[in-house]
């Protein structure tokens, strides 16, 4: 029987799952992702995680707790940096420890560090380190990594064209034959694609006939370019994606409004949203709304605010 490796469905799951899955499968492991977030997982998360962590970290704890008895290994990579000279967020770097000391009875953790701060080449070393858990044959690891990289490129291109990760990973989809206004949604992937914690936002928009554009649909070049306006380089890749895509959405005339989701206690967002708001207010005249999510967010008030935002867009268009 092959080894079962669990991957909690949280944090950057929707960014790197195809890569991790293919890589581990090629090495002969069976990959077990946790199911999409549900009430039980969220409750487990808020029970085991420390109080003042942000929502995605809590959700991640829930997934880890849910998976722990079902697998032989658990993959919690330490994503210190995934773009040279940029970090993601300190919590990504300390994630294996946060989970390790909060959840009891975990299976063996695969907490390989991925740190491309100095150079992208460091990834190769990390992959060899990860691969040696399953095989001693370096050629096999190399081949698995190549196949995984190819899979990841296909996935990224799909997202770029406007597909949603859920179609690729779970085979479900949101209808896209809409003719309504175009809304830009600038937020982190762990809030955007987790339909439980964002109250089914994408479905709700789609059912109202609204088209949306997401940060993953923008090319890296565009985001990079928009962030050039700052004197100081943005040293968080998560913040850069957010600011870059929001500024693009402000500038693009086809986009009728911008919606931002943030989780309570998100450090990066507290800065970047303020920057976006201040720049947006000064230069552009577009409907813009921030919704803060946490584990107590209720469906009804979420709907009310979403409706108000959509009404605003409608009214602008009518005038």
């Amino acid at each position, binding site marked *: 029987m092959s080894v079962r490796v669990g991957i909690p469905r949280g944090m950057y799951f929707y960014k790197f799952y195809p890569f991790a899955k293919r890589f581990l499968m090629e090495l002969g492991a069976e990959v077990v992702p946790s199911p999409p977030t549900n009430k039980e997982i969220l409750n487990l998360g808020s029970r085991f995680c420390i109080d003042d962590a942000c929502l995605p970290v809590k959700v991640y704890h829930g997934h880890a707790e849910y998976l722990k008895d079902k697998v032989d290994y658990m993959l919690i990579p330490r994503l210190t940096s995934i773009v040279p000279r940029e970090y993601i967020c*300190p919590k990504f770097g*300390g994630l294996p*420890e946060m989970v390790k000391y909060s959840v009891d009875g975990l299976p063996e953790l695969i907490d390989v560090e991925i740190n491309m701060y100095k150079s992208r080449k460091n990834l190769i070393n990390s992959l060899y380190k990860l691969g040696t858990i399953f095989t001693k044959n370096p050629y096999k690891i190399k081949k698995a990594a190549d196949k995984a990289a190819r899979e990841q490129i296909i996935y990224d291109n799909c997202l770029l064209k406007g597909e949603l990760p859920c179609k690729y990973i779970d085979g479900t989809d949101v209808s896209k034959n809409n003719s309504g206004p175009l809304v830009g949604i600038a937020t982190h992937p762990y809030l955007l694609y987790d339909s439980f914690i964002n109250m089914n936002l994408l479905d709700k928009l789609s059912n109202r006939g609204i088209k949306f554009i997401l940060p993953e649909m923008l090319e890296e070049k565009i985001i990079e370019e928009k962030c050039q306006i700052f004197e100081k380089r*943005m040293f968080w890749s998560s913040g850069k994606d957010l600011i870059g895509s929001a500024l693009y959405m402000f500038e693009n005339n086809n986009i009728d409004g911008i919606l931002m989701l943030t989780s309570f206690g998100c450090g990066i967002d*507290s800065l970047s949203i303020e920057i976006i708001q*201040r720049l947006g207010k000064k230069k552009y005249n577009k409907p813009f709304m921030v919704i803060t999510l946490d584990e107590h967010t209720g469906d009804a008030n979420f709907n009310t605010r979403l409706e108000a935002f959509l009404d605003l867009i409608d009214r602008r268009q009518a005038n």
Partner: protein
Amino acid sequence: MRLTYPHMGEAYIAVKAMFDDLGIESIIPPYSTENTLRMGAKESPEGICLPFKIMLGNYIKSIEAGADTIVITGSCGPCRFGYYGPLQKLILQDMGYDVDMIILDPPKEGIGKFINNLRKLGGKISSKTYKAFIDAYKVCEKIDELNQVQYYVRPRTKDKAKVNNIIHNFKTKVLTAKGTKEISELIDATKNQLLALDIDKDMNPIKIGIIGEIYTIIDPFSNLNAEERLGNMGAEVHRSMTVKDWAENNLIKPLRREIPYELEKRLSKPYLPVLIGGHTQQCLGHAVNYALSGYDGLVQIYPMGCMPEIVSRSILPQIEKDYDIPILYLIVDEQTGEAGYQTRLEAFYDYVEARSCRRQTIIS
């Protein structure tokens, strides 16, 4: 040019001394009060950490007092501190203040920019600059010593008010003292005043180490004078990070090509093997170090939402178990109430004291 900078604990004393020596006029923001914090919090983003709000309040007060240039250090680490400067600049501009902001990023972010910034500050870089810098570092060392004396004297003396008085006088006088020499003398005089107080030398107070986020532990306003409160209850406190430590590890050691924070990194390694930003490794390393040095309890203080300290907060319970040392976790923000804070510190003090008494009985 009239320069201003945030307090950063006692760093303002050393920085002021240095600029005095270099002949640059500096305006120290009035000591932080509720009002400072309220002014800062009003203009700050809601979810940002407490130091940002206090600093912004400090700047506003300084600008009102006539400052026209703000100087702060920057960083490009994963902690939010690195982006304080650019955002604060944006906010101050939006508020209609016309100030120049000099952000000293580490030289590795671009040596040209760094030298340019230094030029803007002090004209030419000469041996005089170097001497002023070294003298300022010595002032830091002296402040550290003054604090150590205060930690020693406070629990042992009966007249706590006198200690407060001496420190208060020092804080008033230091604003008018000029240059490293005068300030050093003032610090020495204050130290002697403290040592002249009547103390109970046989007393064996419990020892509490303070760990956590650097700004909130070195700035007494942001932690509601936790050191003073614990000292007055009768505990000998020790603060894990000081301005001198910061300067030593970030400025002096790299120049000497020594490894900064060697001890802390070694001790924290079993719990967190890599640097993730902020002072997580230092916080954990100090926690282990205090436990090994026989401290009775630890207090971790950090601002609400601090990203690196949330990671240490989730690891500390393991250290608590491994080394059998109680830890009190205090999270501060602009909503922190004084009474609740005092109650928790008192409860913690009582618990630690009872625990150490029991331990001593078992040993004897």
